[in-house]
């Protein structure tokens, strides 16, 4: 049986360091299993957040060899085990202890998004073709890997200016809803800061649900903002149509 070396970050808001552990590799083992092995055999106080171990609850996010990933979905045999595997907490959010970070900022931002709004006389029958597009966005498990990897938040700390990719798909879900009558374009351009995204697609690259965050949500939202604020032709067309 081969052995993997794990360098896990141990520390809290005051500081910390990498600690190396040796873990025997079993077939099909994921990084979260290795962390559990460390907890069971070396350091019982190693903090890690997890719930489902099925890539569905979104709580086990960490940075494995520098890349934001779900620890329960990352198999050890997908990593080069000739070198130590580093496991760090999400960089974008404040550390609480070891691999656990405080992601509450995301829930605060989410509250700023105006909820679904419907017309008084709404006919609640909907066609599948009309809701299909939004359904992709509802796959989100709120693991916040996309928020973590996004350089606008991660490296430029624009948490007051940019809501981040997870919130963009939430806004897209509502904006594209066939029965929603709220207009979020001004908010998108101002408070949500869609213009900060430079579509470099890292959010899409890390999403464990394989949601096409950039192509299907952010770019269409940028185009909708362009309709309203940057396209005189559309503006005239809308006036003529009386929208």
């Amino acid at each position, binding site marked *: 049986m081969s052995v993997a070396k794990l360098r896990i970050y141990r520390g809290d808001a005051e500081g910390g360091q990498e600690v190396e552990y040796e873990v025997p590799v079993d077939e099909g083992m994921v990084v979260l299993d290795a962390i559990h092995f460390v907890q069971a055999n070396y350091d019982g106080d190693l903090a890690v957040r997890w719930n489902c171990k099925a890539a569905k609850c979104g709580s086990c996010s960490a940075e494995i060899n520098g890349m934001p990933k779900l620890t329960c979905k990352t198999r050890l045999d997908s990593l080069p085990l000739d070198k130590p595997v580093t496991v760090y907490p999400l*960089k974008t959010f404040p550390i609480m202890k070891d691999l656990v*970070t405080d992601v509450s900022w995301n829930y605060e931002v989410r509250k700023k998004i105006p909820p679904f709004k419907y017309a008084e006389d709404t006919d609640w029958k909907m066609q599948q*073709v009309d809701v299909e597009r939004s359904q992709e966005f509802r796959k989100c498990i709120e693991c916040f890997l996309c928020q973590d990897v996004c*350089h606008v938040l*991660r*490296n*430029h700390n624009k948490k007051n200016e940019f809501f981040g990719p997870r919130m963009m798909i939430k806004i897209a879900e509502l904006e594209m809803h066939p029965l929603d009558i709220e207009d979020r374009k001004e908010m998108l351009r101002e408070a949500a800061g869609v213009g*900060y995204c430079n579509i470099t697609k890292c959010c899409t690259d890390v999403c464990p649900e394989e949601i096409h965050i950039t*192509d299907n949500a952010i770019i269409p939202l*940028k185009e909708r903002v362009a309709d309203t604020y940057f396209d005189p032709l559309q503006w005239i067309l809308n006036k003529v149509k009386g929208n």
Partner: protein
Amino acid sequence: MANGSAQNSITLRNDTWWVLPLITAIVLATFGAYSTWRAFSNVDFLVQPYLSPFYSPYILASWWPFSPALLILWAPLGFRATCYYYRKAYYRSFFLAPAACAVQPMAKEGNYDGETKFPFIIQNIHRYFFYAAGVVLFFLWVDAFHALWFEDGFGIGVGTIVLFVNVFLLSMYSMSCHSFRHLIGGRLDVFSKCPTRFRLWEKVSGWNENHALWAWLSLFSVALADLYIFLLAKGVITDLRII
């Protein structure tokens, strides 16, 4: 930032994340240098019945003292420069914003405006370049058909095929454009009321999934088509008549 740890280094990634942006930078710079040289040269672009795509439509303007290519190329150049895919490519490879995911960007923390301010706010008018490039594309189709008529009547040469392949790839690039996808149907919330636009949107969405591929293939084809005609004009190669 958050964790005061090794995550503050450029990256903890240990894969070859720098290869792709490096190759992208080299290819884009080579294309830029080649096309600038050819656009300014104003010679060796017409070998009957073939016209270089850099000089199409063929403009004979006595009032214009420079290369006629300069009257045309702003459209396809602007189209590519504001293209959502190329934005990703050059933001990553030239601006290192960021070069790869979870890698420290070049700009200092907070020193980043994305596409919210001049000059990058101009990216929002991408659709207007789409219209302009569409006009040029029309002339490229005319040229391709023109390449079927030799001095002795109808025929097909290698150059004819080169021009047809090029204009096909350029058309796929245009028709897989994100702005086109939006304008053709993406801006609607209720597809079921506009079945034709829905079908068109579905078609364009399919092409759009490979937009990056069309972007690269058409970039190479346009340069190679020009190179073919340049070499013909220089007498380095001779055109093979198939029919």
